[in-house]
């Protein structure tokens, strides 16, 4: 008499275990997808910020043309502007690719444990489109840095799987995509391209800032701020000769800030690579073991976000539209034959 009861209990227990197991897998997949979406968002913002930096470098080139003494030959000719515009275009494509991966990750997160919503196939189509437009970084005189073909292959697989609502097969495809993306990022990061782009922007800005100080186009009393601000006082210069120590302090501040900003970006680019690497490990674990216990996006993303936030304080997106070739980017008087 007790046997059927025991059988029912075992059966119920087994069903619960199966149910819990499938819920766990779905939770892990959802968590992984959300983490990937966060990482992709930061990657897109990182590339977007580097694009702003490159746009600002172009603007500074225009300022060099306008402010520095020159005759017929400009320090920043249109041919150099074209080279930087090509780099800018490729950075923007990488940003768009990361945004597309973010959309797919979010869609994957929505897909787990539910019937496929229409935005999943929309996001997948967008990723496919971005993958098709992405090219290697330009190199006029040599072989381009190639986009790993695995990105394209894995992208096509994800699109197809999402369209077929094959949730369990998507994790391995996303695993391959994240790893290919990691290969691309690490190739360019370790070659120094990202750090160098930011560094040369800072160098150009610092050079023009110091030139502006020497020309008395800057109010150097701002360096007195730390001493005066607590008491609500404002600095004042009585004569040009008073400015010498303040000019020296301002130039020293430029050097110090340049080093600090440079170091912050080096940490951010290394952190971005580490975050993508960690995400690759997590996606691989989900794809191969069917589970991914980590919760929360990779912690080092905070370093990337801090750098992006800092840059946004002095390079607001709206103020960094690349000027067209030949256009003057400033209202300052031309320095052609200028001796000021």
């Amino acid at each position, binding site marked *: 008499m007790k046997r059927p009861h025991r059988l029912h209990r075992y059966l119920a227990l087994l069903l619960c275990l199966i149910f819990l197991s499938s819920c766990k897998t779905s939770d892990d997949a959802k968590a992984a997808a959300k983490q990937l979406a966060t990482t992709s968002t930061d990657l897109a913002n990182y590339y977007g910020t580097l694009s702003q930096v490159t746009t600002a470098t172009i603007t500074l080139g225009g300022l060099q043309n306008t402010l520095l003494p020159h005759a*017929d030959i400009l*320090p920043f000719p249109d041919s150099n502007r074209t080279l930087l515009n090509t780099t800018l275009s490729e950075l923007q494509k990488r940003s768009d690719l990361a945004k597309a991966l973010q959309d797919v990750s979010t869609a994957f997160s929505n897909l787990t444990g539910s019937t496929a919503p229409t935005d999943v196939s929309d996001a997948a189509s967008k990723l496919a489109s971005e993958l098709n437009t992405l090219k290697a970084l330009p*190199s006029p005189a040599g*072989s381009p*840095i190639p986009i790993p073909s695995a990105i394209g292959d894995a992208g096509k697989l994800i699109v197809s799987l999402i369209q077929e609502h094959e949730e369990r097969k998507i994790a391995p495809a996303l695993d391959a995509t994240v790893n290919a993306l990691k290969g691309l990022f690490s190739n360019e990061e370790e*070659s120094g*391209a990202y750090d160098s*782009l930011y560094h*040369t922007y800072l160098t150009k800005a610092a050079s023009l800032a110091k030139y502006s100080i020497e020309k008395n186009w800057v109010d150097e009393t701002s360096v007195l701020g730390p001493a005066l601000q607590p008491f609500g006082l404002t600095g004042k210069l009585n004569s040009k000769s008073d400015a010498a120590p303040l000019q020296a302090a301002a130039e020293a501040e430029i050097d110090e800030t340049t080093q600090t900003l440079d170091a912050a970006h080096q940490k951010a680019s290394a952190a971005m690579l580490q975050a993508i690497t960690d995400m690759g490990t997590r996606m691989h674990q989900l794809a191969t073991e069917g589970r991914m216990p980590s919760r929360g996006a990779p912690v080092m993303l905070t370093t990337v976000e801090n750098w992006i936030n800092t840059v946004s304080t002095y390079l607001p997106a709206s103020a960094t539209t690349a000027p067209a070739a030949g256009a003057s980017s400033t209202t300052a008087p031309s320095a052609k034959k200028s001796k000021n």
Partner: protein
Amino acid sequence: MTAALQALQDQYDFLTANLPKLLEACNGDAGKENQINAQYAACEANYTNCINKIFNDNDPSVQALVAQMKTQQTALGAAVKHIGDIGGVITAITTAVQTGASLAAKV
């Protein structure tokens, strides 16, 4: 960062930082200003052309050029200290930038 990119970046940094000073030292001589700006633009083009490449540090000729550029960088630094001789400075810059162009062509 690869040694080749570092060498090109160092040259570009150096000329960017010193460009206003070099142009002022021309005292309005259009010919000299043109020479300096042309070399600066060429240096920037060398750097920008190479920013997107993967450098092969194992290539002995690249390593030799990197070493050569480091020597020239030192010479350039010394020349700028005697900026009164702007003609000599322009010669030093031209030599260094030409080496940079050779390096950019090899990577």
